[in-house]
């Protein structure tokens, strides 16, 4: 059975009262059909009804006051009827039932919402769509059962070693999530323990979570100067990293209750000097643990004078990152990885100036050249370039070319590190090549060193190739994720979604060899497509295709791993 069939089956009559109510609706449906010659209707179209019920996916009980929306998608144009302009909504009654009257035969998107509940399908590939398509009219359905999964809740109490409640401890639930094809530990929801140590995190989808807490330190009127105590960051229960942490299974409609026993610590201090900090501006130092999570349980420093003094909660390997902000050109950055097993003093972090990247874009138009009979033509249009940090701790840098920039752009205050270049280009244009300080910068990561000005030369052409395609069975309701991998730079694949006809297209492609994967709804969100090794296991079901300059090719893909 397809997803449609799974979600919208024939209405099951749960009780007599309910059945009667529904039958009334069905008979109204018949009446409506008979009244098709009502004078105010310009067209002699048949109108239909849709009845249904919203139920709790766990216990099958009807859910009252759920908001059901039905939105016209494709089919008969409904504007002839004043009230039918797109969306109609209603709240379910005390039994959880709803009915929509006077619907034109068409395809409609259904959606159901209620605080404390999740649309069952929403989590698996339909996020953003959040709706279910149904056909109303001949051959369509006239009733639907929509399921909502109740939220899960995690509650608990934080106590210290003496069993005293701990207030003000930040707590967050993290779950593995794929963002832009990369696996990340994404904080989902958080809370702060209250005065009695209690915390409560609601609105959770069923799934596996890890609980991360801390760090916290407190410095107020009543802490002895210099003797602040803190709580180190950790995963439940007292695990230093996620590998040794206990997963929390959150079930729909259930509350998980935990006791968090945390240790107060005076911490280990990490102190030293910063070398090469310019006058003025401000300096900020942080200590991060091996998961790149904030790890400070105290500390302060006269950062203006180039000293830092931080505290971490437990022995381990930490990275101290310092950044100095100020006038352009005076900004600097430095970091030091250090094994802390006791108080550490006298460290020296050499600050490196941030880099400036000068971007020169050459727009080499093959079309203009062809029409003018020359070998090169110059165009001028908007291009956005991005340096995407390969290390999770490095941010991205953007620059946008406009009519004034004449192909010259600047990215300032770029932290040293490894980056991949990305381009948002218009139409058939593509990046034909890029070099940074004379080295390959399109197919390979760019290593940006400390300080100075580096030139990034980008050549763009407008004879891009085009790949269009169809995903088999993709004309169903949900978009299928198509991953397009440029085999010459597999680090940054493109994610394309199929349209409602199951088709996709990619233009502005550099001539070369491409590999395409189609992932069924749900799976596309989970695959680490930016990781060539993770994609490899699906290679057998992928298609490889070569395109030349200006060439257009069509492929037909079958989706990998449907969730059904």
């Amino acid at each position, binding site marked *: 059975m397809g997803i449609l069939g799974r979600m919208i089956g024939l209405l099951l009559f749960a009780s007599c009262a309910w059945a009667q109510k529904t039958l009334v609706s069905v008979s109204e449906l018949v009446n409506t059909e008979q009244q098709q010659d009502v004078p105010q209707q310009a067209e002699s179209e048949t109108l239909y009804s849709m009845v249904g019920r919203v139920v709790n996916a766990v216990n099958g009980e009807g859910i009252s006051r759920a908001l059901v929306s039905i939105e016209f998608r494709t089919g008969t144009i409904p504007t002839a009827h004043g009230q039918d*302009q797109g969306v109609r909504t209603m709240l379910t009654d005390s039994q959880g039932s709803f009915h929509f009257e006077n619907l034109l035969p068409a395809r409609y998107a259904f959606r159901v*919402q209620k605080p*404390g509940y999740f649309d069952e399908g929403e989590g698996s590939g339909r996020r953003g769509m959040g709706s279910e398509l149904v056909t109303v009219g001949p051959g369509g359905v006239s009733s639907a059962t929509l399921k909502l999964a109740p939220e899960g809740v995690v509650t608990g109490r934080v106590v210290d070693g003496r069993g005293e409640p701990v207030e003000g401890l930040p707590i967050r639930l993290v779950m593995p999530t794929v963002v832009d094809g990369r696996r990340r530990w994404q904080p989902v929801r958080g809370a702060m323990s209250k*005065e009695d140590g209690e915390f409560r995190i609601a*609105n959770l989808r069923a799934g596996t979570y890890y609980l991360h807490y801390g760090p916290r330190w407190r410095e107020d*009127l009543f802490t002895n*100067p210099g003797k602040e105590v803190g709580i180190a960051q950790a995963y439940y229960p007292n695990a230093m990293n996620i590998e040794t942490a206990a997963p929390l299974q959150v079930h729909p409609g259930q509350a998980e209750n935990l006791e968090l026993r945390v240790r107060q610590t005076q911490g280990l201090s990490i102190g030293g000097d910063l070398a090469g900090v310019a006058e003025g501006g401000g300096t900020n130092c942080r200590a991060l643990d091996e998961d790149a999570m904030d790890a400070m349980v105290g500390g302060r420093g006269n950062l203006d004078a180039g000293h830092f003094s931080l505290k971490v909660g437990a022995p381990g390997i930490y990275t101290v990152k310092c950044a100095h902000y100020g006038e352009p050109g005076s900004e600097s950055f430095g970091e030091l990885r250090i094994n802390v097993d006791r108080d550490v003093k006298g460290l020296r972090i050499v600050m490196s100036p941030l880099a400036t990247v000068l971007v020169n874009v050459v727009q080499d138009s093959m079309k203009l050249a062809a029409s003018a009979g020359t070998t090169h033509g110059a165009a001028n249009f908007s291009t956005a370039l991005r340096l995407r940090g390969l290390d999770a701790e490095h941010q991205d840098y953007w620059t946008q070319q406009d009519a004034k920039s004449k192909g010259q752009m600047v990215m300032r205050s770029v932290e040293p590190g490894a980056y991949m270049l990305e381009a948002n280009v218009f139409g058939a244009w593509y990046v034909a090549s890029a070099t940074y300080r004379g080295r390959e910068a399109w197919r390979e990561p760019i290593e940006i060193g400390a300080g100075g000005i580096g030139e990034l030369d980008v050549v763009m052409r407008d004879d891009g190739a085009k790949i269009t395609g169809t995903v088999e069975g993709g004309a169903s309701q949900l978009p299928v994720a198509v991953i397009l991998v440029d085999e010459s730079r597999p680090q940054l694949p493109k994610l394309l979604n199929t349209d409602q006809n199951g088709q996709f297209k990619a233009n502005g492609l550099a001539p070369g060899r491409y590999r395409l994967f189609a992932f069924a709804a749900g799976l596309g969100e989970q695959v680490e497509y930016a990781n060539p090794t993770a994609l490899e296991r699906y290679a057998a079901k992928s298609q490889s295709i070569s395109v030349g300059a200006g060439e257009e090719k069509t492929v037909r893909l079958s989706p990998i791993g449907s969730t059904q």
Partner: protein
Amino acid sequence: MNMSMKLAPALFGILLVFVSCVCALPQQRPNGGAISGAFHVSGTVVDEQTHRPVANAKVALLISQAGEEQRRVANTGGSGIFVFNGVSAGKYDLYAEARGYAQQALNAHDNFLTGVAAGPGKNSENIVFALSPEAIITGAVGDEAGEPVRDAHVALFRKTNTQGIDAVSMVGMQNTDDRGSFEFRKLRAGAYYIAVGARPWYASMRYQSWGLRSQQNRDPALDVVYPVTFFGGSTDEANAQSIHLKVGQKFEADVALYPTPGLHVRVRGTAGRNSPTVTLQRKIFGSWQMPMGLQMNHVGEGDWEMSGVAPGRYIARVQPVNLGVSMDPGTYRSEQVRQFPVEITGDTEIDPAQGPGVAQVTGVVQLPVSGGKTGNRTLIFRNTLDRQPVFVPLQKDGSFKNTEITVGRYQMELTGPGGYAVQSLAASGAATVVGHQIEFSSGAAAIAIIASNDHGEIHGVVLDHGKPLSGAMVLLVPREGIQEKERIQRDESDSDGTFSLRTIPAGNYTLLALRDGWTMEWGKPEVLAPYLRKGIIVRVGGRETGEVKLEAQ
């Protein structure tokens, strides 16, 4: 003794929990152990109601010396007793907190406390520090079907005696959790109000989901709003029910919200590129702004419409596009935000051009001949309606020209070097001096301000039948009367009965000490009059410092 400004906010239960980076830390560095000497500060922390010792209370002893905060901390253990040995002579602030008690200063009233004087002949031991048990207000917000309302804004207001007049001010804000619950802890006894703002989830969710382009799609049954609702069920703050919270009491304050049709407010001529921005603000008890999350829709013909507006009294703010472009001193044209009250009871229109006019103000601030530097001064017009300031940079000769000021009454303030304050005002044209404020009407106005840094100090001791009295309220009232509350100065007498009043503009005053002033509506002339008659008349002249003995009334 006046409470240290740095510490006063901490008394409202703000925890200094640092979870962010080092750069966020305040630069005051506590200096442990610097308080040392031959004296002792000791006492017992007791429950204000039961008078029993409070176990495991934390006590902090603070002194401000040479601009640096010095601090020592003690724990009372099981006995409630705290001892600070080896304390040098001086005046200290004492704070205490314990589980189940809010953080308090010794004998705290408003922003004043009884300072502890340590030194030869001073009794700084056997202090009884009465902590009042925290009171708690909890509750749940439910909707018309009795279901919990999540993420509702719940604001807690307290009736306070500020400058001798009862006023209502916001003391806490929370969002409800998934059960619709909220909880305000560590509250003091007093009169409280609760205001709740929320949007019906089914109305707001629909907007988010579908990004409605046209208002025709709106289903009237779902185009509803919750008016701001007070505990007790009223949607009008004048009829809001107050909660009289007793010391240590736990009060349950559930609030139910009922929808009303969402009103539509059309704003004329605001859709163009250079058109002003119009927003509606809902101020609760004249101070706190309830977030409303209003939806703006473009409705054609160059107009915008705000939908989902709840009935109520709003302040419409019109913000010009070219806000603050010219900052040239002296010719500062403040294209300032104009605001005017609107009462919305049904679908309506707002014309951004409506509302109060502006005064074109030209003026000068004169410093005494000996005043030295005149540069870098800014005159502040503070609107008495909403306390919002308009900053007007002055030229070197102290003048400014053609500044646009929205019609209304303003308090005049001066910033800059030398500690100069506004001493006297004169006005002509569309401006009238009302006490130490200026009322502006539409048109051209000229004002002249004389500033002075001629300040005196008064030090003294409050006596009760000849013996020093601590905890009394000391009031310094201008001879003109108490109409201008801003000019009244106060202090609380310390453990040795002493008090200090500083930066007093030259003039004649009445000085008095009240035993029960903290619970008295002394800001009302009829209440204060009998005490005023028995006060001491003092004259504060150029930079003089007086020493006064004051018998408490």
